[in-house]
């Protein structure tokens, strides 16, 4: 049984618009059988934080192309992507890439 985790979830680059314009969310993930990883964090976000148009954020069981996921300010690709196991006090940033100029 994994203990509850306190995690900072942050959105930027316009992704926050799907979350009522709120960029920073301090969240507590409840204790559960399996350890928390990014895959089930996404499911939790979709259920608890996402306000509208989930297809602009989620695609399949991952984020849609064009959204970068950063765990403690590092590209999630360096840390195992969906399989990264969250630690207490981690910060996870979802940043939509910009294209304007």
């Amino acid at each position, binding site marked *: 049984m994994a203990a509850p985790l306190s995690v900072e979830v942050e959105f930027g680059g316009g992704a926050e618009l799907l979350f009522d314009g709120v960029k920073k969310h301090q969240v507590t993930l409840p204790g559960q059988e399996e350890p928390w990883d990014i895959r089930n964090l996404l499911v939790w976000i979709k259920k608890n934080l996402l306000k*509208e148009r989930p297809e602009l954020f989620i695609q399949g069981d991952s984020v849609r192309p064009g959204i970068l996921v950063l765990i403690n300010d590092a590209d999630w690709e360096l840390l195992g992507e969906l399989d990264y196991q969250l630690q207490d006090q981690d910060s996870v940033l979802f940043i939509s890439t910009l294209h304007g100029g």
Partner: protein
Amino acid sequence: MATREEVLALRAAVAQREEELNSLKQKLAAALLAEQELEPERRVPVSPLPPKAALSRDEILRYSRQLVLPELGVHGQLRLAAASVLIVGCGGLGCPLAQYLAAAGVGRLGLVDYDVIELSNLARQVLHEEALAGQAKAFSAAASLRRLNSEVECVPYAQALTPDTALDLVRRYDVVADCSDNVPTRYLVNDACVLAGRPLVSASALRFEGQITVYHYDDGPCYRCIFPQPPPAETVTNCADGGVLGVVTGVVGCLQALEVLKIAAGLGPSYSGSLLLFDALRGHFRSIQLRKRRSDCAACGERPTVADLQDYEAFCGSSATDKCRSLQLLSPEERISVTDYKRLLDSGAPHVLLDVRPQVEVDICRLPHALHIPLRHLERKDRESLKLLREAIQEGNGDTQEGTAVYVYVICKLGNDSQKAVRILQSLTAAQELDSLTVQDIAGGLMAWAAKIDQTFPQY
């Protein structure tokens, strides 16, 4: 104290000067146009810049403040003078970037932009001026930069960067700056840089945020390493829809110029393999670590599949401009033109006009008789909004016969969101959450209204 005659004489003198100034501006615009027409014939074959051996007395004075920086020094300045930079996009990022590169004494600047200057560009595209509205941005930028530093060679390319032209162009320059505003161009520039072996300094901005990084430098990642798949077209927001503050593109364009200068002077960039995020509203700069170059990258990996440039518009499912897309969701019978709506309005036929733009846009301008409910409220079936709509429909119904459907016309800025709103209203009617109604959207929206019906109505 000035006499009345003196005041009058001064007024007359001012008016005369203003007239002279206007005529000069017109002449300049015409001259630029003539230059532009000549340009395709000229097709300057750009040869590599020769290495520079020494600085002249004038150059020493001009660049003295940066020459005394030990990190740069004469050696770095000579490298800048022999460097060439290709700037893709002469807009909000390209203008400040080009301005600082020219001021710092970079030898040659290639300026790519297919677009012409519009009034709505001037709040952030600071090399262009009022008098040149309608002229090509590439020529306007070149003219502006020549006034700033006549020693810098400016080569305008008033055409789109295409898969046919990109590689040849990129090969003629040492460093490339991506200041473009759309996804297909970003992939095109990346692939051309990888194929030509050029470092790419890439930046973007929207609303109050900016992002900047350096691709394909030394063993660093390229754009495709980070973004192997393009984003779905409907998730991409342009500056016209999302808005952008000019100073934000200014800050980001200057940071981009800094990276270009460091590469060109041999100091090396700071943001290869990392991405700088700038949040202007919160005053935050945050640098994040990006992944390494991917060995399976389609462009720069060990077995690349991008051997030559492709059709990037097809790859991304969007066009290589930042012009607003026009949605075709409804059938022609479900739409009405602004001209027909005007006729209907003048005839006094009972109806409800529903404006579905966000509040911030309604604050800019509105038709006084419109009911305002933002699309987002309709999407989430906001109770209060549906109540307002029902009341408006009942009120409109008072004048019509029992049993006839009420006409609802939906309007937005350009006629995209209004189509989505029509679909929502139709489904609400089908679900009997709204009374029977006939709903159409006004094609082209308020901007068509401004262009065709009411010339005093603001455009934005």
